[in-house]
């Protein structure tokens, strides 16, 4: 057993930090909080929680992100915030980004947060999103989805290069929208990924969740990434079947505990699931993690979820 325990992205903000951000930012505005000493304290707190739960490849918990999209969009010139809209089937909303002018990376996007997290000495995985971000935005500037996607990929490529230079060896790209993309969407997404990963000295994991990958699996295998992420909670049976039937010559980030419920899995069942997965994928190419970011949970339940994960796979060692 040589797989790596990992985080999938977000971690709930500590309650005191929520209050701090609310004071700093207000309830209505879309502006992001500052990297100040309060942030550093909150960051340390969630890194410590991950450490206690023996998570090897950690994230900064995306503590300043208001949702999966806006934190990336509003640091990119050309996006403006629109009206509130539901994020998938969650009781969670985001301000639908609008493209109003040419996309440009004027400043770094998540690099300063990444650098701060790296100061902890932990192995940290930054998280981006590309195709999904364009699918959940509205575009009245670019003449086609393809142009919009290419422009965004090019902006994110600059960020990814800096992240890799700053020490990121794995970069996760969240793409739940690819699971429902049509052939053309998958085609232009693949082209965009070629731009996104170009000359970036890191390995990319294309992460999917909320469903199984039956509609996109064969195409995803052709993407220029080193790994894909599959949801073995919400798409368990079909995703198991897919990796068994197709095989997988990539790293696999396997979401094996349910980040959207406070019900705690029996570690023995999780362990059984991981064994099933290792029948199709070499365990040294496997990252086990929650099926998505943990911010759907109350703070006290997030650490418990991670403990279930590490209890079920004790013995995993960092490659």
């Amino acid at each position, binding site marked *: 057993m040589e797989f790596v325990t990992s985080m999938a992205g977000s971690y709930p903000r500590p309650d005191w930090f*929520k209050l701090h951000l609310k004071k700093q*930012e207000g309830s209505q505005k*879309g502006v992001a909080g500052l990297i100040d000493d309060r942030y550093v304290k909150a960051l340390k707190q969630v890194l410590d929680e991950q450490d206690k739960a023996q998570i090897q490849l950690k994230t900064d918990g995306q503590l300043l992100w*208001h949702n999966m999209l806006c934190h990336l969009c509003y640091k990119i010139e050309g996006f403006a915030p629109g009206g509130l809209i539901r994020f998938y089937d969650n*009781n969670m909303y*985001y301000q639908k980004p609008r493209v109003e002018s040419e996309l440009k990376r004027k400043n770094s996007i998540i690099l300063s947060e990444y650098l701060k997290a790296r100061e902890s000495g932990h192995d940290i995985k930054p998280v981006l999103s590309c195709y999904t971000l364009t699918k959940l935005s509205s575009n009245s500037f670019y003449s086609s989805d393809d142009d919009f996607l290419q422009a965004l990929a090019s902006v994110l490529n600059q960020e990814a290069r800096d992240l890799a230079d700053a020490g990121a060896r794995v970069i996760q790209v969240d793409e739940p929208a690819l699971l429902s993309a049509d052939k053309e969407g998958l085609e232009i997404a693949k082209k965009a990924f070629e731009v996104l990963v170009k000359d970036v000295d890191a390995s990319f994991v294309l992460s999917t969740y909320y469903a199984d990958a039956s509609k996109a699996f064969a195409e995803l295998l052709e993407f220029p990434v080193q790994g894909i992420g599959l949801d073995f909670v919400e798409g368990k049976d079909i995703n198991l079947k897919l990796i068994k039937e197709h095989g997988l010559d990539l790293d696999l980030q396997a979401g094996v505990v349910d980040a959207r*419920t*406070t*019900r705690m899995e029996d570690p023995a069942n999780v362990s059984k699931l991981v064994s099933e997965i290792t029948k199709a994928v070499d365990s040294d190419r496997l990252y086990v993690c929650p099926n998505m970011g943990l911010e759907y949970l*109350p703070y006290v339940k997030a650490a418990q979820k991670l403990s279930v994960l590490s209890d079920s796979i004790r013995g995993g060692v960092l490659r």
Partner: protein
Amino acid sequence: MKNKLLPTTVVGSHPKPKWLNHLIVEFEQGNLDKGVMESAFNDSVRAVVKVQELAGLDIFWDGEMRREEMTSYFAENIDGFTVYGPVRVWGNNYYKKPAITGELRYRDEFSLSDYRFLSSLTDRGIKVPLTGPYTIVDWSFNEHYNTKEDAVYALAEVINEELKALVAAGADFIQIDDPAISTHVDELEVAKKSVEIATKGVKAYIGLHICYGDYSKLYPQVLDFPVDQLDFELANKNFEDIKIFREHDFTKDIGFGCVDVHTKRVESVAEIKENITKSFEMVEPKQVYVDPDCGVKLLSPQKAFEKLKNMCDAAEELREEL
């Protein structure tokens, strides 16, 4: 239950007075006596009643002064729920997402005293809005029941008990708020059955409020729900959904959301009249209840009043013309 054409009503919530929000914070921090808090809630309901009178509404609710949001308020009064802590809704806004950790059982009333207090303050009609079992479960974690359906039906039984108690106390108009229905249209049958269980033996006029989401995925199936009225937001989507509803005979009354609660712009009386008139493209005037798209709590008190007043004036002018 209608005795006049185009009765005007609210969906439920009203902006809380600033002083009330201030006192709620003090109370939560333990700086305020429970009795003082109670009297503050009651006074704020009196203020809402006055505002609704001045606006000219026909059917009132208490503005939900006691409810912070529409899930945990109910969950905290029902056995089987635990609240671990807040979960984000958007940005810096969170709600106390409940978890079902045991069998759901009726413990104590959760709207009856609100109804009784309001009915002591006004002779106008009253509508009691309650979040539907489907939505409460959808917005909660389920640790106890094997399936979501089991949890929904168990909660529907609890709500049924409350609805019967409301009717026994004199309530004749109940609105089930079920915004989550539009987010999982594949579970429409579960939602329908939950409404059936919740309203079984409840002798009142029943409305079902569904906001947000794509109505084309619910319609016409939602006409089969055992309710008298469907309450929809129309203004927010510029009344484009009327064409969806026109595709089938609209066999219920409609709560016609004719004022947009997501914009501060106060629609004029003439504009709202035109909006209400659009309902006649899909139903007879006698089927129409006039209300805003949703609760008005996110507006400022002044804007909320102005919108409600113009809405009531518009309905009054139309009544005279019809």
